[in-house]
Protein backbone atom coordinates (compact mmCIF):
# COMPACT_ATOMS: atom_id res chain seq x y z
CA UNK A 1 0.00 0.00 0.00
CA UNK A 2 1.25 3.39 -1.01
CA UNK A 3 2.14 5.88 1.75
CA UNK A 4 0.34 9.20 1.75
CA UNK A 5 2.31 12.42 1.60
CA UNK A 6 1.16 15.88 2.59
CA UNK A 7 1.09 18.56 1.48
CA UNK A 8 1.10 17.90 -2.26
CA UNK A 9 2.95 21.14 -2.90
CA UNK A 10 4.77 23.82 -0.93
CA UNK A 11 5.99 27.23 -2.04
CA UNK A 12 8.60 28.95 0.10
CA UNK A 13 10.81 31.98 0.09
CA UNK A 14 14.50 31.34 0.66
CA UNK A 15 15.19 31.00 4.38
CA UNK A 16 11.72 29.75 5.32
CA UNK A 17 11.02 26.38 6.91
CA UNK A 18 8.78 23.57 5.74
CA UNK A 19 7.54 20.20 6.94
CA UNK A 20 6.55 17.30 4.69
CA UNK A 21 4.64 14.40 6.18
CA UNK A 22 4.42 10.75 5.18
CA UNK A 23 1.83 8.36 6.61
CA UNK A 24 1.30 4.66 6.21
CA UNK A 25 -1.56 2.37 7.18
CA UNK A 26 0.75 -0.56 7.86
CA UNK A 27 3.55 -1.33 10.33
CA UNK A 28 6.79 0.00 8.99
CA UNK A 29 10.38 -1.06 9.34
CA UNK A 30 11.95 1.89 7.60
CA UNK A 31 11.19 5.16 5.90
CA UNK A 32 13.37 6.57 3.15
CA UNK A 33 13.41 10.12 1.81
CA UNK A 34 14.44 11.03 -1.71
CA UNK A 35 14.55 14.27 -3.65
CA UNK A 36 14.06 14.42 -7.39
CA UNK A 37 14.88 17.48 -9.45
CA UNK A 38 13.15 18.00 -12.75
CA UNK A 39 14.44 15.63 -15.40
CA UNK A 40 16.78 13.87 -13.02
CA UNK A 41 16.77 10.61 -11.09
CA UNK A 42 15.67 10.57 -7.45
CA UNK A 43 18.56 11.07 -5.03
CA UNK A 44 18.71 9.53 -1.57
CA UNK A 45 18.51 11.92 1.37
CA UNK A 46 18.20 9.72 4.44
CA UNK A 47 16.75 6.57 5.93
CA UNK A 48 14.99 6.16 9.25
CA UNK A 49 14.85 2.74 10.82
CA UNK A 50 12.43 1.37 13.37
CA UNK A 51 13.93 2.05 16.75
CA UNK A 52 16.49 4.36 15.21
CA UNK A 53 17.29 7.98 15.77
CA UNK A 54 16.24 11.12 14.00
CA UNK A 55 18.40 11.66 10.97
CA UNK A 56 19.87 14.76 9.41
CA UNK A 57 21.23 15.70 6.00
CA UNK A 58 22.68 19.20 5.96
CA UNK A 59 19.81 21.42 7.18
CA UNK A 60 17.23 18.75 6.46
CA UNK A 61 16.19 16.41 9.22
CA UNK A 62 13.55 13.73 9.60
CA UNK A 63 11.76 11.84 12.32
CA UNK A 64 9.91 8.53 12.42
CA UNK A 65 6.98 7.94 14.75
CA UNK A 66 6.67 4.17 14.87
CA UNK A 67 3.42 4.17 16.81
CA UNK A 68 1.68 6.36 14.28
CA UNK A 69 3.56 4.93 11.26
CA UNK A 70 4.41 8.45 10.26
CA UNK A 71 7.54 10.25 9.21
CA UNK A 72 8.15 13.96 8.84
CA UNK A 73 10.83 15.73 6.85
CA UNK A 74 11.92 19.12 8.22
CA UNK A 75 13.54 21.60 5.88
CA UNK A 76 15.12 24.44 7.82
CA UNK A 77 16.23 27.76 6.37
CA UNK A 78 15.41 26.56 2.87
CA UNK A 79 17.79 27.20 0.02
CA UNK A 80 17.05 27.52 -3.67
CA UNK A 81 18.75 24.16 -4.17
CA UNK A 82 16.04 22.49 -2.06
CA UNK A 83 13.53 22.86 -4.85
CA UNK A 84 12.34 19.57 -6.24
CA UNK A 85 9.91 16.77 -5.57
CA UNK A 86 10.33 14.94 -2.29
CA UNK A 87 9.32 11.31 -2.06
CA UNK A 88 9.03 9.14 0.98
CA UNK A 89 9.49 5.43 0.51
CA UNK A 90 8.31 2.93 3.08
CA UNK A 91 9.28 -0.62 3.84
CA UNK A 92 6.98 -2.94 5.73
CA UNK A 93 7.92 -4.61 8.98
CA UNK A 94 9.82 -7.89 9.09
CA UNK A 95 7.61 -10.90 8.47
CA UNK A 96 5.20 -8.93 6.38
CA UNK A 97 4.75 -9.30 2.66
CA UNK A 98 6.19 -5.87 2.00
CA UNK A 99 9.43 -6.39 3.90
CA UNK A 100 12.27 -5.53 1.56
CA UNK A 101 9.93 -3.77 -0.88
CA UNK A 102 10.20 0.01 -1.07
CA UNK A 103 6.90 1.70 -1.89
CA UNK A 104 6.88 5.42 -2.62
CA UNK A 105 4.33 8.12 -1.96
CA UNK A 106 3.02 10.45 -4.64
CA UNK A 107 5.57 13.11 -3.84
CA UNK A 108 5.54 16.68 -2.54
CA UNK A 109 6.60 19.44 -4.90
CA UNK A 110 8.74 22.01 -3.09
CA UNK A 111 9.48 25.32 -4.77
CA UNK A 112 11.85 27.80 -3.15
CA UNK A 113 11.85 31.34 -4.48
CA UNK A 114 14.56 33.98 -3.91
Amino acid at each position, binding site marked *: QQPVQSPQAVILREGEDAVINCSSSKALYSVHWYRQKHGE*APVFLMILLKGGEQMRHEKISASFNEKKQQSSLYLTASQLSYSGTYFCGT*EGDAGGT*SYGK*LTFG*QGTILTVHP
Partner: protein
Amino acid sequence: GAGVSQSPSNKVTEKGKDVELRCDPISGHTALYWYRQSLGQGLEFLIYFQGNSAPDKSGLPSDRFSAERTGGSVSTLTIQRTQQEDSAVYLCASSLVVIRPEAFFGQGTRLTVV
Protein backbone atom coordinates in the same frame (compact mmCIF):
# COMPACT_ATOMS: atom_id res chain seq x y z
CA GLY B 1 30.15 0.52 -12.79
CA ALA B 2 30.14 3.98 -11.27
CA GLY B 3 26.38 4.22 -11.20
CA VAL B 4 23.21 2.55 -12.34
CA SER B 5 23.07 2.57 -16.11
CA GLN B 6 19.88 2.25 -18.12
CA SER B 7 19.44 1.86 -21.83
CA PRO B 8 18.09 3.14 -24.02
CA SER B 9 17.61 6.58 -22.50
CA ASN B 10 14.72 7.22 -24.86
CA LYS B 11 12.53 4.82 -26.78
CA VAL B 12 9.71 5.61 -29.16
CA THR B 13 7.73 2.61 -30.29
CA GLU B 14 4.55 1.90 -32.16
CA LYS B 15 1.54 0.57 -30.35
CA GLY B 16 1.55 -3.20 -30.38
CA LYS B 17 5.31 -3.61 -30.60
CA ASP B 18 7.44 -5.25 -27.91
CA VAL B 19 10.18 -3.34 -26.11
CA GLU B 20 13.08 -4.32 -23.88
CA LEU B 21 14.53 -1.98 -21.31
CA ARG B 22 17.90 -2.71 -19.79
CA CYS B 23 19.37 -1.93 -16.39
CA ASP B 24 22.99 -2.33 -15.33
CA PRO B 25 23.14 -1.99 -11.56
CA ILE B 26 26.10 -0.85 -9.52
CA SER B 27 28.62 -3.67 -9.35
CA GLY B 28 28.08 -5.81 -6.29
CA HIS B 29 24.56 -4.60 -5.57
CA THR B 30 22.39 -7.61 -4.92
CA ALA B 31 19.03 -5.86 -4.91
CA LEU B 32 17.50 -4.32 -8.03
CA TYR B 33 14.20 -2.47 -8.42
CA TRP B 34 12.06 -1.32 -11.32
CA TYR B 35 9.72 1.65 -10.96
CA ARG B 36 7.52 3.51 -13.40
CA GLN B 37 6.93 7.24 -13.29
CA SER B 38 4.26 8.83 -15.41
CA LEU B 39 4.41 12.55 -16.17
CA GLY B 40 4.10 14.50 -12.93
CA GLN B 41 3.29 11.37 -10.96
CA GLY B 42 4.94 9.42 -8.20
CA LEU B 43 7.08 6.32 -8.36
CA GLU B 44 5.04 3.22 -9.08
CA PHE B 45 6.65 0.01 -7.88
CA LEU B 46 6.86 -2.70 -10.53
CA ILE B 47 9.17 -5.46 -9.32
CA TYR B 48 12.30 -6.07 -7.32
CA PHE B 49 15.01 -8.73 -7.37
CA GLN B 50 17.13 -10.25 -4.67
CA GLY B 51 19.93 -11.75 -6.69
CA ASN B 52 18.21 -13.39 -9.64
CA SER B 53 14.92 -14.11 -7.93
CA ALA B 54 11.91 -11.82 -7.75
CA PRO B 55 10.08 -12.24 -4.42
CA ASP B 56 7.39 -9.77 -5.36
CA LYS B 57 5.92 -9.40 -8.84
CA SER B 58 2.69 -7.86 -7.65
CA GLY B 59 3.47 -4.44 -9.07
CA LEU B 60 3.60 -5.54 -12.68
CA PRO B 61 0.56 -3.84 -14.28
CA SER B 62 -0.40 -6.76 -16.53
CA ASP B 63 0.85 -10.01 -17.98
CA ARG B 64 2.32 -7.99 -20.84
CA PHE B 65 5.07 -6.95 -18.43
CA SER B 66 7.88 -9.27 -17.45
CA ALA B 67 11.35 -8.88 -16.02
CA GLU B 68 14.36 -11.05 -15.52
CA ARG B 69 17.77 -10.74 -14.01
CA THR B 70 20.71 -12.90 -14.90
CA GLY B 71 24.01 -13.46 -13.16
CA GLY B 72 22.86 -11.28 -10.29
CA SER B 73 23.61 -8.27 -12.43
CA VAL B 74 21.88 -7.00 -15.56
CA SER B 75 18.10 -6.89 -15.62
CA THR B 76 15.71 -6.48 -18.54
CA LEU B 77 12.13 -5.30 -18.35
CA THR B 78 10.08 -6.47 -21.30
CA ILE B 79 6.76 -4.97 -22.32
CA GLN B 80 4.86 -6.92 -24.94
CA ARG B 81 2.22 -5.47 -27.24
CA THR B 82 2.81 -1.98 -25.93
CA GLN B 83 -0.13 0.33 -25.32
CA GLN B 84 -0.22 4.12 -25.12
CA GLU B 85 -0.80 3.97 -21.37
CA ASP B 86 2.60 2.28 -21.05
CA SER B 87 4.25 5.61 -21.92
CA ALA B 88 6.27 6.70 -18.90
CA VAL B 89 9.79 6.91 -17.53
CA TYR B 90 10.97 3.53 -16.32
CA LEU B 91 13.46 3.84 -13.49
CA CYS B 92 15.79 1.19 -12.22
CA ALA B 93 17.50 1.30 -8.84
CA SER B 94 19.96 -0.93 -7.04
CA SER B 95 21.15 -1.29 -3.49
CA LEU B 96 23.90 -3.22 -1.77
CA VAL B 97 21.42 -5.34 0.09
CA VAL B 98 17.67 -5.28 -0.04
CA ILE B 99 16.62 -1.68 0.67
CA ARG B 100 19.43 -0.66 2.99
CA PRO B 101 21.43 1.46 3.21
CA GLU B 102 19.93 3.21 0.23
CA ALA B 103 18.86 2.65 -3.34
CA PHE B 104 20.67 4.37 -6.19
CA PHE B 105 18.58 5.25 -9.21
CA GLY B 106 19.50 5.26 -12.86
CA GLN B 107 18.51 8.12 -15.17
CA GLY B 108 15.61 6.13 -16.52
CA THR B 109 14.27 5.15 -19.91
CA ARG B 110 11.63 7.43 -21.32
CA LEU B 111 9.21 5.23 -23.24
CA THR B 112 6.76 6.79 -25.67
CA VAL B 113 4.19 4.61 -27.36
CA VAL B 114 2.66 6.20 -30.43
